[in-house]
C-alpha cells in the first residue's frame, strides 16, 4: 500500500538559499588564538593514539631478538613468515571473500527491505521494526549453539557460506533501518515524476532514487565489510579446515598457550589492519554523510 504521504502532490521546488555569511567575530577569535594552543594538544593526542601503531610496525619490521626502538635494519621476514608459513595468504583471500559477499548480500537485502519500510505501510510494520531493533540486543555468542546446529543440518559447517550467511543476518537489521531512513529522505515526488515519464517502480528506483542513496549505500556496505572482516567468533566456530579460516582466526593461532612470536603477530596485525584502514581512508567522506543522514528520524 502506498503511504498517505505518497499520494500528496509533489512539493514546490525549493530554491537553494544562499549560505549566511559567517560572523566576523568567529574569524577574529580563530586568528587571535595562538596556533600552539591548538596544535600542541592535537599533537599530544596524536602521539598518544599512534604510539601503539608504531609499536606494531616496530615489531613487524625489526629483526627477531632486536630491542632497537627504530625498525632498522628493516626486515620483511615476519611478513614472509606469516604470509607463507602461517597461511595468511589463504586467510586473506577467505576474509576478502567473506567481506565482499557479506557487503553485497547485506546491501542488496537491506536496500529492498529499507525501501519497503520507507515507502509502504503494512499491518505489522511497527512490530517488525521493533523486532529488528530487539535483534540488536542479542549477542552472537548466545546464538552459537543453535546456529551451529542449523548450519550442521544445512551442511554448511566448514563452509565460508555459513560465515557469510551469519554475518549478513546479523548486519541486516541496522543496515535496513539506516537505508530506510535514507530512502525516506528522498522526496517521493521524484519517483512519481519518473512514473509519469513512463518508468515502472523498479526503473524509477534504479534511475532516480538509487543515485541519491550513494552515501547510505557506502556507509552500509563499508560497515558490513569491516564488521565481517574483523569478526572472529563465527569464523572460529563454523570453520575447521585451515584453508577455510579467516584473518582474525589466523591471528589468534599466532599466540600459543605459552609462547608468542611477537614479530609474526605484529606482521599479521598489519596485514589484518591495512584493508580496513584503506577502506576507511577512501570512504571517510561518504561514511560521515551516510551515518548523519541515515540518523535523521523518518
Amino acid at each position, binding site marked *: 500500500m502506498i503511504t498517505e504521504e505518497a499520494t500528496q502532490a509533489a512539493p514546490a521546488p525549493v530554491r537553494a538559499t544562499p549560505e549566511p555569511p559567517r560572523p566576523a567575530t568567529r574569524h577574529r577569535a580563530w586568528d587571535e588564538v595562538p596556533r600552539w594552543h591548538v596544535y600542541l594538544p592535537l599533537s599530544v593526542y596524536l602521539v598518544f593514539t599512534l604510539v601503539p601503531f608504531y609499536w606494531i610496525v616496530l615489531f613487524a619490521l625489526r629483526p627477531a631478538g632486536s*630491542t632497537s626502538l627504530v625498525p632498522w635494519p628493516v626486515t620483511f621476514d615476519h611478513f614472509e613468515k606469516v604470509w607463507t608459513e602461517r597461511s595468511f595468504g589463504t586467510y586473506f583471500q577467505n576474509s576478502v571473500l567473506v567481506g565482499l559477499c557479506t557487503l553485497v548480500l547485506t546491501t542488496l537485502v537491506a536496500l529492498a527491505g529499507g525501501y519497503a519500510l520507507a515507502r509502504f505501510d503494512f499491518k505489522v510494520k511497527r512490530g517488525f521494526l521493533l523486532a529488528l531493533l530487539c*535483534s540488536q540486543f*542479542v549477542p552472537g555468542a548466545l546464538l552459537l549453539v*543453535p546456529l551451529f546446529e542449523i548450519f550442521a543440518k544445512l551442511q554448511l559447517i566448514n563452509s565460508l557460506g555459513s560465515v557469510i550467511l551469519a554475518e549478513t543476518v546479523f548486519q*541486516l537489521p541496522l543496515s535496513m533501518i539506516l537505508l530506510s531512513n535514507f530512502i525516506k529522505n528522498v522526496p517521493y515526488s521524484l519517483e512519481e515524476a519518473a512514473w509519469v515519464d513512463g518508468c515502472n517502480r523498479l526503473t524509477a528506483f534504479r534511475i532516480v532514487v538509487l543515485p541519491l542513496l550513494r552515501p547510505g549505500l557506502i556507509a552500509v556496505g563499508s560497515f558490513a565489510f569491516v564488521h565481517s572482516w574483523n569478526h572472529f567468533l563465527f569464523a572460529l566456530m563454523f570453520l575447521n579446515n585451515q584453508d577455510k579460516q579467516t584473518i582474525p582466526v589466523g591471528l*589468534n593461532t599466532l599466540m600459543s*598457550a*605459552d*609462547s*608468542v612470536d611477537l614479530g609474526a603477530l605484529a606482521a599479521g596485525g598489519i596485514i589484518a589492519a591495512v584493508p580496513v584502514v584503506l577502506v576507511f581512508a577512501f570512504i571517510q567522506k561518504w561514511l560521515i554523510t551516510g551515518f548523519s543522514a541515515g540518523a535523521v528520524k523518518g
Partner: protein
Amino acid sequence: MAVALGSVLALTATACGDDGSGSGDKGSEGSGKGRIVFWDNNGGVRTDVWKQIIADFEKANPDVDVEYVGIASTEYQSKVDTAIQGGGLPDVGGVGAAMLAGFSAQDALEPLDGRLAKSSLNGLLNKDMLTSLKAAGGRDGRLYSVPTSANNGVLYYRTDLFQKAGLQAPTTWDAFFTAAEKLTNAGRNEFGYTIRGGAGSIAQALDAMYGQSGITSFWNGDRTTVNDPANVAALEKYAGLYKKATPAADVNNDFTKMVAQWDSGTIGMLNHNLGSYQDHVKAFGAAKFRGIPQPTRPDGKRVQVSNPVDGLGLFKSSRNKEAAWKFIEFAASRAENSKFNESAGQVPANTQAAQDPWVQKSEPTKLAAAALSDGSTTIVQLPYYLPDWNTISKADNEPNFQKVLLGKMSAKKFLDTLAEQLNEAQAEWKRQG
C-alpha cells in the same frame, strides 16, 4: 530479519531431528580405515610438527586419512563445548588436565583404560602423568586422555646480569629474593624480577607460596591449605616484590607481556614454563640465560604445584574409534612423542622418548624431566577435577590478586576468600559424587 530467519532455520533444524553428533552419541568402532578428524588444542605454533606426525602416520597406515584442525589454545574449550552441545566433534582431540573435568563431565570422552591395557604403549607412559590425568578426569578414576607431554615451571635467569652483579644462581628462595633486590635499579629501568599480575597470575602465585612454605598437599581433609599461615607469609613476601624489584606495569602482565618484557629488557629473572624457552633463545641466544627448576627451601626440599599434563582424547561420538585409537597410539609412540616434545620443548610422556639425546641437550627440559622423576621434588596436585577450578583460579580471583599487588587487599584476605570458594567447590563436588 535475524529473528525471522533464525526462527525459520530453527524450525527447519527441529524438523530434521538429531543427527547424533552431539553429546550422548555413543559413536562406533568403525572399520579402522577411512578418515578421522583431529583437533589440536594448541594450534598455530605446533601445526608444523603435528603435520609431520600425521604424514608419518598416514605413511604407516595408508588406509587412514587424518584431517588436522589447529585451534588456538585460548578458544579450544569454547569450540569443543559448542560442538558437544551442537554436534560436530572430532574423532581425536587434544585434552589436557585443565579441560578434562569439563569434557568428561559432559560425557563426551571415551574411557581409554581398556585400550591402553591391550596396547604396545602399556607400561611405557610416565606413571605420574597417567595418575595426574586420571585424577583430573573426574570421580570414576578412569583414563580419558593419553598423556603426551608435561610442562613444568621454570625459573629463567640472566646469567650475564648475575655474573656482573656477583650473584649466585637462584637455586634457593633466599638466593632468589636476594638477587631480585640486588639486580634492581629502578632509576635505570633495571629490575630483578618480573611478576605475573594479569591472566594466569594465581597458578604462579600458588607455585611461589607452596615452594616457600613447603606444604606438600593442597588439601588437609576437606579444607584447602591455601590460606595456611605459612602460605600467607609466603605470599606476602612474594607480592612484596611488586614495584620494589619489578616494573609497575607488571600488575597487568599476562604471560605474553611478561615474556616480551623479559626478552626485551634488563630484567634478571622470570618465572614461566618450558614453553617460552625458544623465545628466550631467539632474544638472547642460549649463552646469556639459564632455565632451572623452582628454587628449593633452606632444607633443600623443592615443592611446586602441578602443571597441567597434556594428552590426546578419543571423543565418544567418533564413528571410527578404531582408527582414532591407532592415531593416538602412534602419536604417543617413542619416535613421534619424541619429535613432538622436542619441537614443543616439553617433557615427553613416553618414558623411552624421555631418554632421547635431545632431552639431555636442552637444559631446562632435562632439569624439568629430572625434577619430575628423580624424587627431588614434591608436587602439590592442584584440583583440576573441580568443575569450577578454572573459574575460581582465573576470573573470580585474578582481580583480587591485582589488589594484593597494589596494596588494596591483604594477602590473608585474598587467600581466605580463595579458600572459602575452593572449600565450597570441593564440598559441592563431593555432594554430587
